């Protein structure tokens, strides 16, 4: 990378010189500012002292599926979107999946989408996609007694691309969902369209 002190291109140097010129300041604006400040309550020292530069923390969440189950949201029909509920179908060797749009009150534009993959041989399954940075650790699915794996993701209305990951290594498209155009990386992805206010 360029050294901090290396010379700038002449054109850029010119721009810097010009940009460094003072701007004319509206004296009235400054007066207004001071009036506003004087009207404020007096600031007080903070006790205890807090560092003003804090790095953002990642939040660890409990598995959403547990909350959803507790809330009784699992298995509430379909609103919009294309669902295939594969209850009656016997599991085959080919992994099966389904995306279910569960009902949320209309005031919320995002929807909790249930992702399901039938993969009884798997040790771990997660969903990756454009909504979680394709991070296999972000959205793990929970194994159900029947050998299916489920998780919920809250998605904004619109088109989203995703895949399942089995055992941290095998990318598997959702066999029940529309096929996304070639990902360019040698794996097939799936598409979910969440219907709602803006898509």
């Amino acid at each position: 990378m360029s050294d901090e002190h290396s010379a700038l291109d002449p054109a850029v140097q010119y721009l810097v010189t010009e940009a460094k010129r003072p701007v004319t300041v509206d004296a009235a604006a400054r007066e207004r500012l001071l009036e506003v400040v004087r009207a404020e309550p007096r600031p007080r020292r903070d006790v205890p002292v807090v560092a003003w530069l804090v790095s953002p923390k990642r939040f660890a969440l409990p598995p959403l599926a547990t909350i959803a189950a507790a809330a009784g949201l699992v298995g509430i029909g379909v609103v919009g979107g294309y669902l295939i509920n594969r209850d009656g179908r016997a599991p085959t060797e080919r992994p099966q999946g389904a995306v279910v749009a569960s009902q949320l009150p209309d005031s919320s534009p995002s929807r909790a989408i249930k992702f399901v993959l039938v993969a009884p041989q798997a040790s771990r399954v997660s969903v990756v996609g454009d909504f979680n940075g394709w991070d296999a650790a972000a959205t793990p699915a929970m194994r159900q007694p029947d050998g299916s794996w489920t998780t919920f993701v809250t998605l904004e209305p619109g088109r989203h691309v995703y895949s399942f990951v089995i055992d941290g290594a095998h990318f598997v498209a959702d066999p029940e969902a529309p096929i996304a155009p070639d990902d360019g990386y040698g794996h097939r992805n799936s598409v979910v369209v969440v219907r709602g206010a803006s898509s």
Partner: protein
Amino acid sequence: MKSVLTGLASLLVVLASPAALAAQVGGRDPLQRLEPAVRYKVELLIDSAKIYGLPTPPLVSRALEGMSKRADDRKILAEVTREFRFLRDARVALGPQVSTSELTAAAGALRLGISQSELAQLARSRTDKVLTIPLVVLSDLISRGVPRDTASTTIYQLFQRGAADDDFLGLWRGVERDIDSGTDPGQALLNRAREIPARSPGAPPASTGRPDISETQDR
């Protein structure tokens, strides 16, 4: 019961948001794991996208996808570049008043060989309907083996005749089922397309006695 569900549902949304947000952004610096020379070029593409008024999340997402799938950095750069070009070409074809979803769906169709003029034709006949689902269905059908011209012409005609999102989804579901049971893909599409009645654009779909696509399909 309703108020309990509402409360828990909003809890669900509230709890989900920070992770979704942080994950969408990929942490503070999603591209930091890329080799510097490649990252520089990816970021130049992102800048160009902003200047062109293109959405940048699909580009970042392509890069993150490549990292997740263990592609090498050169490959990732190549894919982000392709995505940029398809998005730009989609924007030219569809015009400025389109949502990100329509744009990414259109970019997907371009990847599969649909031309800009076919996209522009679709855009011209849209009235206020959104193109996302027709384009997603079009892309899927081509990926399943429906010849490109057949898929493109059929989808366009349906759209022009007023087919709604539910019609396209039903069509897609039926064609998928038929292909699975051995029907020639192009033929499957033509058969199913005939089942969709013409509607005047903007009119709600009339009940046709076909099974609701939201019901469990009996296969």
